[in-house]
């Protein structure tokens, strides 16, 4: 059993490595449009992988992705503008800041289980946004402009690719090793897990901090690409909602869920872009239908049908 899982982990790591390596050369032959889409997909993939880790493995359903995206963006801009730091270092520090904020707020948020955690992350994002708006040091509602010229698209794409690669590797580690057993135990029954010697607080914190660090890093890359950030956009609830819908559409807790969800939502957005008046409503309807008829997301739907067709009504 464990051997199988570990072998799966090795295969998975290899696949991620190969795909990432192949994508590295995408700018050489893909057009700008595809790079733009690819960039967006990679950023969202990082966020959705983190979300999936928290929700699918540790049972933490977050509505606070925007909180860490925004934090990462502000940290990166501050470091780049004030200290003229090289971007990779700034991104690493943004990740550290994301993890640190997660660690700082976790004693408060983890006292709460289930819905309360969700509501708490929502409030946290709002609190941070309001702080940025009100404190002129952070540019108030105007936000901050990046002093230096942003790198070109292929460089940004590579940046996003690295973040998504790190995120995927981290998730593979969490999903394919012994860590996964511990994470799922905490998700299923925190108290019983504690009686087994698992320290639920640390486990949840690790998942939360890891996901937050990834989100902050993704937010930093997104901010560099935008060149200008302000609290309403970068701390917008839209981030949290997008990530949540991607994860749910793909399939919560499924390894391929985030990837499929991200592709689905981005493709949908692009398809409906020509119907600007109604595209939000149409997206809403599609979301409702998917939630209703594909409870484990698109991945779950496909996997389940395969399973059902292979061995009918036994087990």
């Amino acid at each position, binding site marked *: 059993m464990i051997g199988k899982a570990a072998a799966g982990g090795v295969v998975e790591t290899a696949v991620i490595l190969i795909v990432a390596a192949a994508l590295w050369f995408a700018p050489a032959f893909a057009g700008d449009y595809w790079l733009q889409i690819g960039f967006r997909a990679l950023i969202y993939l990082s966020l959705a992988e983190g979300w999936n880790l928290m929700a699918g493995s540790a049972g933490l359903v977050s509505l606070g992705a925007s909180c860490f995206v925004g934090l990462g963006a502000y940290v990166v801009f501050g470091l780049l503008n004030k200290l003229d730091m090289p971007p990779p270092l700034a991104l690493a520090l943004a990740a550290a800041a994301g993890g640190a904020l997660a660690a700082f*707020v976790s*004693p408060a*948020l983890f006292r709460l289980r289930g819905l309360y955690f969700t509501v708490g992350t929502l409030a946290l994002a709002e609190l941070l946004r*309001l702080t940025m708006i009100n404190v002129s040091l952070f540019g108030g509602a105007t936000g901050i402009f990046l002093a230096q010229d942003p790198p070109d698209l292929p460089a940004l794409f590579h940046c996003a690719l690295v973040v998504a690669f790190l995120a995927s590797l981290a998730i593979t580690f969490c999903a394919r090793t012994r860590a996964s057993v511990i994470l799922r135990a905490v998700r299923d029954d925190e108290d019983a897990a504690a009686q087994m010697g698992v320290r639920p607080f640390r486990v949840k914190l690790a998942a939360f901090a890891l996901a937050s660090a990834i989100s902050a890093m993704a937010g930093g890359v997104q901010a560099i690409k935008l060149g200008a950030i302000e609290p309403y956009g970068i701390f917008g609830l839209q981030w949290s909602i997008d990530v949540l819908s991607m994860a749910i559409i793909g399939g919560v807790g499924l390894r391929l869920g985030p990837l499929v969800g991200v592709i689905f939502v981005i493709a949908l957005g692009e398809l409906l872009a020509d119907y600007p008046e109604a595209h939000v409503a149409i997206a809403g309807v599609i*979301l409702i239908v998917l939630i209703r008829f594909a409870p484990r997301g698109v991945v779950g739907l496909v996997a389940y049908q395969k399973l059902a067709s292979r061995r009918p009504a036994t087990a």
Partner: protein
Amino acid sequence: MPDIGVALSTIASGVLLGGILALTALGLSIVLGVMRLVNLAHGEFLVLGAYAGLFFLQFTGVDPLLGLPVIALLLAAFAIPLYRWLLQPLADRGPEAQMMTMFAVSIILQNLFVLAFSADTRSIARDYAALPLTLGPITVPLIYLIGFAISVIAILIVNWVVSSTAFGRDLRASAADAEAAATMGVDVKSVRMLTFALGVACAGMGGALIGAAFQFGPSSGGAYLLNSLAVVVLGGLGNVLGTLAGGLVLGALQSLGGLTLGDGYRDLVGMALFLAVLAFRPDGFLARGRP
């Protein structure tokens, strides 16, 4: 430091405003407490109530505050099919599915508001909404006092329904253990549907009140959702009277924050308080310590 009249007026308005906030949060509280559903479309239901109030006035000429029961009924009638077709099939699928469905409903409603009513900022223009009420050094908007009174009455009625009627008993039993309640003869589906309708009806009343007291537009819902969540958490989940207390405390502290730090810090104070309560008194500050 602002002068004493300004300070007293601000705090008094804050407390009264808190009463109104409590009514806007009541619907969310009921739905969250009984159905464990974070109704992400709550803000849109408030806005819908405000539009209902606006058009009610336009078509009937009757003051929307007098027509609150009618608006509540309209919203309840709107909520029932919504529950029946969208939420009920997801009843056994964990909180996320319903939450996301309500999110989808919220963006659809926002879009429909824009298409049907344009993106204009509206307000239900009533003379009493623009009158001050002066008592010695204290001046508060008359509409705040009216809203406060309506809110308290509505909350007391809902509290009576939940704590002292057969429907309320069924509601609490279903919330605690749906399967056992069904076996004991409670029609859990209907109870949930009516609970949802009650929550939406409350939101509609709160929305009509907001429409008269303030202003609204298709996308005003989001801000009210967050404020309502803060009120609900302050008061304790599903605790009807706690919602009133939560609203009052939030209103008072927000206006204190606005007074000392500037109006911009109102919401910030609200959110900070919200998180603090979540962290230290997750059952609401009213709750007695858990055994």
